[in-house]
């Protein structure tokens, strides 16, 4: 039996495809159903619009995939996104007396991403050094971050300046494809590469799969965990950049609200195990696009927005049920 590859029958290949790509199959079933219910849904403009709208949560979900595979969770991403977004707005609206910006735009974006990453570092440090459960730590850090935005924004909306070149990030397109989705896709490629081809990615799976064995194997478990939280923090910063570019404002109480749950939902719908050690970026992409489709269909079919939670909940259950491994 050692190392011999058996000739596979067509049936076996189909079974294997179903095992590995059931989420993609489910995805196409959903698209087909949507197309039948509302033919307008399949128009290219609508599809592109879905990709644009879903990419912000999508970027966070991509980072969240690392944390969840590593056996953790991050409930602070939404508020962290609002906080780093607020910093970006503060910096981009500062102008000199001559009317030129104090800081170049790239610098403001960089600071925004760094703030997100710093929150990730904070989460990771507390979780690993104080040995506290990630659920509680990130919940608390999220509450702190939300409160900070509200304080600096004095409870109102923080308004920024509309700068054309900045607006392009969130609202522009390249070759007809929405820029936010291009950013998400590039990140997805990078993250897929990191998870499957690098040692770091392998260690993330190991730590999520069996923390003790990883420690005995010599993996620096704490460091790996901290990195995963920094990645999702960075993603919150990138998501903030896109969101700010579209909105040019931070509504202190609602900006990024529920994004962490949407991101976690996308990861879970994509087949990543909440217990850690198992998961894929491809799944997460399909996961957040499905969520985008659901939001879109609610409008298409004129369903009361109050019912959106009911539909989303059902989709989660359906998707997870479809990929259940006996």
């Amino acid at each position, binding site marked *: *039996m*050692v*190392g011999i*590859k058996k000739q596979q029958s067509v049936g076996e290949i189909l079974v294997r495809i179903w095992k590995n790509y059931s989420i993609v199959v489910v995805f196409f079933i959903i698209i087909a159903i949507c197309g039948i219910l509302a033919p307008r849904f399949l128009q290219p403009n609508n599809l592109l619009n879905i990709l644009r709208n879903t990419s912000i949560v999508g970027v966070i979900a991509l980072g969240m995939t690392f944390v969840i595979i590593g056996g953790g969770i991050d409930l602070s991403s939404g508020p962290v996104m609002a906080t780093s977004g607020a910093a970006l707005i503060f910096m981009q609206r500062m102008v000199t007396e001559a009317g030129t910006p104090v800081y170049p735009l790239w610098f403001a974006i960089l600071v925004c991403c760094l703030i997100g990453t710093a929150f990730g570092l904070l989460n990771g440090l507390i979780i690993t050094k104080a040995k506290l459960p990630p659920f509680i730590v990130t919940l608390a850090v999220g509450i702190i971050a939300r409160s900070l935005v509200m304080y600096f924004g004095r409870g109102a909306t923080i308004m920024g300046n509309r700068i054309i070149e900045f607006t392009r990030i969130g609202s522009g397109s390249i070759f007809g494809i929405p820029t936010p989705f291009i950013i998400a896709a590039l990140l997805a490629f990078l993250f897929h590469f990191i998870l*499957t*081809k*690098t*040692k*770091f*990615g*392998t*260690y993330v*799976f*190991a730590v999520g*799969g*069996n923390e*003790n*064995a*990883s*420690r*005995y*194997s*010599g*993996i*620096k478990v704490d460091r790996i965990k901290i990195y995963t939280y920094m990645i999702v923090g960075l993603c919150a910063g990138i998501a903030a950049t896109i969101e700010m570019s579209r909105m040019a404002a931070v509504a202190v109480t609602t900006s990024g609200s529920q994004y962490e749950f949407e991101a976690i939902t996308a990861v879970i719908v994509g087949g990543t195990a909440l217990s850690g*050690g*198992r998961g894929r970026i491809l799944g997460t992409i399909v996961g957040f696009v499905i969520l985008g489709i659901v939001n879109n269909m609610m409008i298409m079919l004129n369903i009361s927005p109050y019912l959106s939670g009911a539909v989303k909940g059902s989709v989660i259950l359906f998707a997870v049920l479809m990929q259940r491994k006996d």
Partner: protein
Amino acid sequence: MESILKMRGIRKSFFGVEVLHGQDFEISKGEIAALCGENGAGKSTLMKILAGVYTCDSGEIEYKGEKLGPNITPMDVQRRGISMIHQELNLLEDLTVAQNIFLCREPRNRIGAIDYKKMNSDAKTLLARLGEKIDPTRKVHELKIAQKQMVEIAKAISFNVELLVMDEPTSVLTGKETEILFNLIRNLSKEGVATVYISHRLKEIVDLCQTVSILRDGTFVTKKNVADVTVKDIATLMVGREVKESMASDYNGNGEIVLEVKDVSDTMLKDISFTLRRGEILGFSGLVGAGRSELMEVIFGIRKPHHGEIILEGKPITVKSAIDAIKANIGFVTEDRKDTGLVLGRSILDNINYEFWLKNRGGMRRRRDSSKRTQDAIKEMSIRCTGEDQLVSNLSGGNQQKVVLGKWLIANAKILILDEPTRGVDVGARQEIYRIIQNLANNGVSIIIVSSDLPEIMGICQRTAVMHEGRLTGVLNNSEMSESKIMYYATNV
């Protein structure tokens, strides 16, 4: 004798691979029957089918003249008086001893609430039958592994049991506890309780059992009266070929000292010093809880000593975490494969390469090189698998252990520590593991083996250090070793 259980033509496949090819098994009232076979021979699978954990693909089970249907649940089986101790402990760590013993069968008082007083006193009585004085209100996670096993046994006999199945019950027990267990089984047998006893320790089978049924590769080989066979006969029948007893002798090389441990102390250990030479095989004997595993954890950087020195090839080193030890070419095959040895949900390739990747620079996995290393290890260790991408959780115990050994081989360990390397490993795979250890030593790897199995220590170690309650009480050369001498130091009487 009237037969209590008949299993006929049992077939079972996993993932399209048939592991039981029409298995038969029969046991009479009051019989103590051993079930022997190499790892993967199908013993545990057969018993799990009986217990209702797995459903067989075909075949029939007749218990006390009544057919058991295919949809029988573990609960039904228990209610009929079949009780099983699985190879892995199945206790809920955060519940108390008594709660575990009476799980789902808690005694109730008049208003229907759980009668803890009765539950605890019943548990105490049961444990006393096993010679254990564990407080039934203690949480299971506070217990030592041997005590947990006794709780598991107490649970098994707490039912109105008529057929008792024990899968490797003694792998974590000491000699004294094993003796108590055997007496209990003999007494139960006199009351008419039949026992199926699965163990890799063939000497136990000869001591305890009346008959021995042998399985090989999922088929029934033979059933014999224990009185008619020797340990060697059983081993030969199991593997289907002659088994060589491995013979060790004193260390006669003049290799330099590669590892020197000086005055290591912590809460558990007291001033431990010893040396290890190149290519030497050094054993560590002692009772469970003597501090042997703790000492190994200190050397491997998992546990921090209060004081003491570790000197590697003449230079003092500090090992603050496992990676420091790994970089110093020390390898550690831990006692608990599932908890600390392997990431079960990942592939053979991943598990075999972790140390290599960590020791070497660069950020990439380099699939092709990793794959080649894995194939080499699979061949070298003769790991039975469907391929390098197979999940480690789908391998048998012996093959999992070979994966652990393989990763240290690939990581080029110069000092290899093995903690109970053959626990839950069958005779055939055990011989292979001994062969691997011997080969490594011949190639200049220095080896430390922690083992509670005295024949193992005497069979393979050139020297053995004996520990008692955190102290090193004696060091014996192979020619001086005997069971009584080792036990003398281990109990420090």
